[in-house]
């Protein structure tokens, strides 16, 4: 338990100054969005596709008011409610897609790096080709197909995001596997007769998943943007199925010329804040976990057996 706690708090205790504040700020913001996502039905004043309350229809493109803090949009929907519900959609899509990415990408990279040979070469070629391709275009193509097959659902969009992020997990895990499998402890494990599976699971897995949290957080940020981009182009989730910030911005753009700012500003700010938060967490983790960037906090050194009355070097600074 203590070990787990120290692992979780290490990014906070080991960082200093700006890096620490960025990390703390990112975590706090992310937690706020997670709370909004989980408790959306209780926090949001109305449903995401609700155009009237108690038999009274909402105004069309109504100014922000006491009944509708963020105003209403051209479909009569309450902007505040849709912004809050949007957090839930974003969270669902991100969790689903990153989870599938890790479940497929990590074992694939591990096996590919460990066994090598033609299996590895073919996979590397495919993954490199996918990686070289503009990821947003790839997402467009995949969602074009998947929404044909499944409709504009959370599942379809998540799967198209999965398709564009898997190569990243594959590459990172494969490359770390390549160097980790040459280590002495792996050779020792092989010498005592451990099976390939046991070596991968017990000896390599723990070493190669180190970079996954950073990658996952940064991918989550990117996934929010891609999801919103697809929604903006009308390729994502339909607005009556779920609240989606990108699609709301698309509708807002039609009114931008006539000075209507509230329909676009709030969903847009939600995207910016959540992506910023996740990026800050990812960068903060990177700065603590990546030794080339890391700047450790100098911890006071207590010398054993030193007379208590002498000043220690630490106090002079």
């Amino acid at each position, binding site marked *: 338990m203590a070990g787990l706690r120290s692992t979780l708090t290490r990014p906070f205790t080991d960082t200093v100054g*700006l890096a620490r504040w960025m990390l703390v700020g990112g975590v706090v913001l992310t937690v706020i969005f997670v709370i909004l996502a989980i408790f959306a039905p209780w926090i949001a004043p109305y449903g995401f596709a609700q155009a009237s309350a108690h038999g009274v229809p909402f105004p069309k493109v109504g100014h922000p008011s006491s009944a509708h803090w963020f105003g209403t949009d051209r479909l009569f929907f309450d902007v505040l409610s849709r912004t809050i519900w949007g957090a839930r959609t974003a969270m669902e899509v991100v969790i689903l897609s990153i989870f599938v990415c890790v479940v497929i990408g990590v074992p694939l990279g591990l096996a590919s790096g460990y066994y090598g040979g033609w299996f590895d070469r073919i996979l590397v070629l495919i993954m490199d080709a996918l990686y070289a391709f503009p990821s947003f275009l790839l997402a467009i193509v995949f969602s074009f197909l998947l929404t044909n097959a499944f409709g504009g659902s959370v599942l379809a969009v998540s799967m198209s995001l999965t398709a564009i992020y898997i190569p990243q997990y594959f590459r990172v895990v494969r490359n770390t596997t390549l160097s980790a499998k040459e280590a002495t402890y792996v050779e020792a494990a092989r010498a005592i007769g451990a099976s390939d599976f046991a070596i991968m699971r017990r000896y390599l897995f723990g070493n190669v998943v180190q970079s996954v949290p950073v990658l996952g957080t940064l991918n989550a940020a990117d996934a929010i943007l891609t999801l919103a981009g697809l929604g903006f182009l009308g390729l994502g989730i339909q607005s009556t199925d779920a609240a989606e910030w990108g699609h709301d911005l698309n509708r807002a753009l039609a009114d931008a010329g006539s000075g209507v700012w509230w329909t676009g500003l709030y969903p847009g700010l939600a995207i910016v804040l959540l992506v910023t938060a996740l990026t800050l967490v990812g960068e903060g983790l990177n700065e603590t976990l990546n030794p080339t960037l890391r700047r450790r906090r100098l911890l006071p050194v207590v010398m054993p057996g030193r007379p208590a009355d002498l000043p220690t070097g630490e106090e002079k600074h």
Partner: protein
Amino acid sequence: MSRGGSGSLPRYILQRVLLVIPMIWVILTVVFLVLRVAPGDPVSAALGGKLDPQALAQARDRLGFNRPLIAQYWDYLSSVAHLDFGTTFSDNQPVLRVVRDNGGATLSLTLAAFVVALVVGIPLGLVAGRYRDSFPDAVIRLFGILSYAAPIFFVGFLLQVYVAAPLGLPTSGDASPITIFEVKPKTHILLVDALLSGNGTAIEDVLKHLLLPALTLGLLICGVFIRLVRVNMLMTMQADYVEAAEARGIRRRNVTWRHGFRNALVPVITVIGLQFALLLGGAVLTEATFNWPGLGQKLVLYINNRDYGAVQGIVTIFAIAVVLISLLVDIINALIDPRVRY
């Protein structure tokens, strides 16, 4: 490697060019599989409802969708090899003509965005990296993160509401109709055509239309440059030769300029190539936001029409363009930095 020196450069280029062929082949295969293995029949998806069943069957026959998949695959590869990217289903145009008519607008948008990104991003990144953990560093890093975190269409929306409306700047299209009417298309790149025509009003009109879209797309890439240049600057300033220069008593400012900045900028060239992919994706969104008549908007239009032929052709061309540009960047890199040529 026995010859060493500059002698290995042609060999490196040859290797790199040969590597492009399997790369393109894999991408083409992925594009083909993704678009053909999908459920549903492409022809009825695009033309269903517009044609009766008999005409539909004829169209399917004509376009070769009744043949075995492997034959279709072979057809696709061989026609791409002959630079034939097919025709669109919905308006029956050669994909190459669509690219020629709309590619120019995308090209001028992306190039202008690159200029914005470099001009804004590099100085900010250098300053942030040089003065690590200072107040400017914090502000610049936050700006870098925000410019990455703000979706293109949101930046575009803000510019339209808060900048374009008060200043009376255009927010739709790449020129007003009168300019398009007056300027004769020679290169199919409107800015170049306007400059060639020497018509002052037309040039001004085109530049005005270009301003906000280029700014929007440029800010996206600018964040990437800030982060990259900053990290490189950090690493360079920690390098042994910088320490050695300081130890020799060279003034701090000279060390920063001559040893720090210059070396921190080398990787930027590599990343410019990588950013092209990001830029293409961003261009699609920028074009949709500003109703810019480029290839990205055309692609979205064809997607909404469920036009497989057009989607396949345009995506194929995008893919080849990306691979070729990364090849070009690698070669330029090898020319500049001898370490790349292993």
